[in-house]
């Protein structure tokens, strides 16, 4: 028999109001939402369930809102030197991390040698191979100070850096190694004369070279103090036997890694999800020792519990490479859970020396911003 009281109760009943109904997703669903679990033969829950309606039936709005992002996003710098950087990006989707990585590798500009004018080469290395090797030498010059050299442009002091290389191995001497320190910066531009059509009328004007600099680059304030050199001065370019000689000019221009990898400002830029190692039960004594021994990355450690008993603990989960060596063991497979946090990225950048890695990352984010702006402008 349903009384009036029951009816009123039913009408006002809201399941969320009960004190023992948890708000948000239950624990096991939350685990699926933000962890990838590496199982013995394959990883599970790899998909990014970040689509806003994914958890609608649990009453959870799964979308990324700007306000939430402003609150949740965190950056943790682990190390930062002139060439290398490691930092944690927390609270962001892989779509972003990947966009930054791709831009760092392929779209942040740098300077690289594009044209090699070979005057003399009697070395064993043929001209085109030599030119290719020289092209790959990283140049320590800030690309933001230069302009792109377009097809119709004359090479000038704003878009070209010229290096000279003239080495000879004298007869009677041992073999000579030509290193990048032999590349000599020419702030006044090319010294090679362009062949004129045999006319003598221009004899009193400035002789024409392969570049048309209007002023010397070392008179510019950016380069007055610090001459432009290759990043590393000990890279081998060629080896010369006695009597062999190389004379050439190398012209560096601005470009992006999409065109050719030599313009990539990073050796590499990569990220991985933060590993999370969880012991699902007590791992003791012989098993604990086995677990510590089996891990090549020293993730686990042994804790002394007294009475000669030992227990395994997770000491350094960050070291874990998810090699799954620990879950190949029949006894341990059910005791260890290897997970990755889906929205926590360990990002590493290795710069080739044109810019410090932190500046490179900032530039990469700026480029993505510019892309968005371009699309908006295009659609307006």
């Amino acid at each position: 028999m349903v009384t009036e009281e029951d009816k009123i109760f039913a009408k006002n009943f809201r399941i969320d109001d009960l004190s023992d109904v948890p708000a948000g997703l239950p624990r096991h669903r939350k685990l699926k939402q933000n962890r990838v679990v590496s199982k013995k033969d394959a990883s599970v829950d790899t998909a990014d369930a970040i689509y806003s309606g994914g958890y609608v039936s649990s009453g959870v709005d799964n979308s990324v809102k700007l306000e939430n992002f402003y609150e949740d996003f965190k950056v943790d710098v682990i190390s930062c030197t002139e060439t290398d950087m490691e930092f944690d990006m927390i609270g962001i989707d892989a779509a972003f991390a990947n966009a930054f990585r791709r831009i760092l590798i392929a779209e942040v500009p740098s300077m690289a040698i594009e044209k090699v004018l070979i005057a003399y080469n009697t070395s064993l290395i043929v001209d085109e191979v030599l030119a290719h090797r020289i092209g790959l030498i990283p140049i320590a010059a800030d690309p933001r100070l230069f302009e792109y050299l377009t097809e119709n442009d004359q090479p000038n002091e704003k878009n070209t850096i010229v290096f000279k290389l003239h080495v000879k191995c004298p007869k009677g001497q041992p073999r000579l190694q030509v290193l990048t320190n032999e590349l000599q910066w020419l702030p006044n531009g090319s010294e090679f004369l362009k062949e004129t059509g045999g006319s003598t009328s221009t004899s009193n004007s400035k002789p024409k070279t392969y570049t048309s600099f209007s002023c010397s680059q070392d008179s510019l304030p950016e380069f007055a103090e610090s001459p432009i050199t290759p990043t590393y001065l000990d890279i081998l370019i060629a080896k010369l036997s006695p009597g062999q000689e190389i004379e050439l000019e190398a012209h560096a221009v601005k470009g992006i890694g999409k065109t050719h990898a030599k313009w990539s400002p990073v050796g590499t830029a990569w990220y991985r999800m933060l590993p999370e190692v969880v012991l699902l039960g007590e791992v003791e004594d012989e098993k604990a020792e086995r677990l510590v021994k089996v891990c090549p990355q020293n993730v686990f450690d042994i804790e002394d519990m007294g009475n000669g008993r030992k227990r395994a603990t997770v000491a350094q989960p960050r070291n874990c490479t998810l090699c799954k060596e620990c879950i190949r063991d029949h006894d341990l497979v059910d005791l260890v859970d290897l997970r990755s946090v889906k929205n926590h990225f360990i990002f590493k950048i290795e710069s080739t020396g044109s810019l410090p890695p932190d500046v490179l990352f900032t530039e990469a984010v700026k480029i993505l911003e510019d892309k968005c702006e371009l699309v908006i402008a295009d659609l307006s």
Partner: protein
Amino acid sequence: MEHGSFTNDSFASFTLAEEDHTLANAVRFMLNQELVNAVFDLDLVSVYVVTNHYYLQLYSPRVTFAGYSIPHPSLECVNVRVQTTGDPAREVLKDACQELMLMNRHVRSVFDKAVSEFKVEQARLAAEEEKKKKAEEEELKKQRDLLASMDIESD
């Protein structure tokens, strides 16, 4: 470039020239933040009432479908498809780009702050190390001096 319909602007494809996965995947991610599941779309109200009473306040999705494709690897363009519940697809895509830009701006400011903080901390640690070294040296010198003076006295 937009490929849409003259009569209904709630769905359209957009060709973004000289772009690739870098931008397209991020834009799709942003569009998906406003995605409404097709099943729920059929009967929006009843589903929301059954599942959650406060849900409508939080969640007002505008997109029914968002995706992208690269027509051919040698073509430098991507096609982005946007279908909405009624708003003009062009506006929704523009909003997504706008939001993406704001997020990037935030990423940049947070990153710059973290790096400058890290550098200040490194400088402080280095200075501390230096100080400690100096103090140790001085202590050593003092002891040496003391020892020397003791020697003289014993003489």
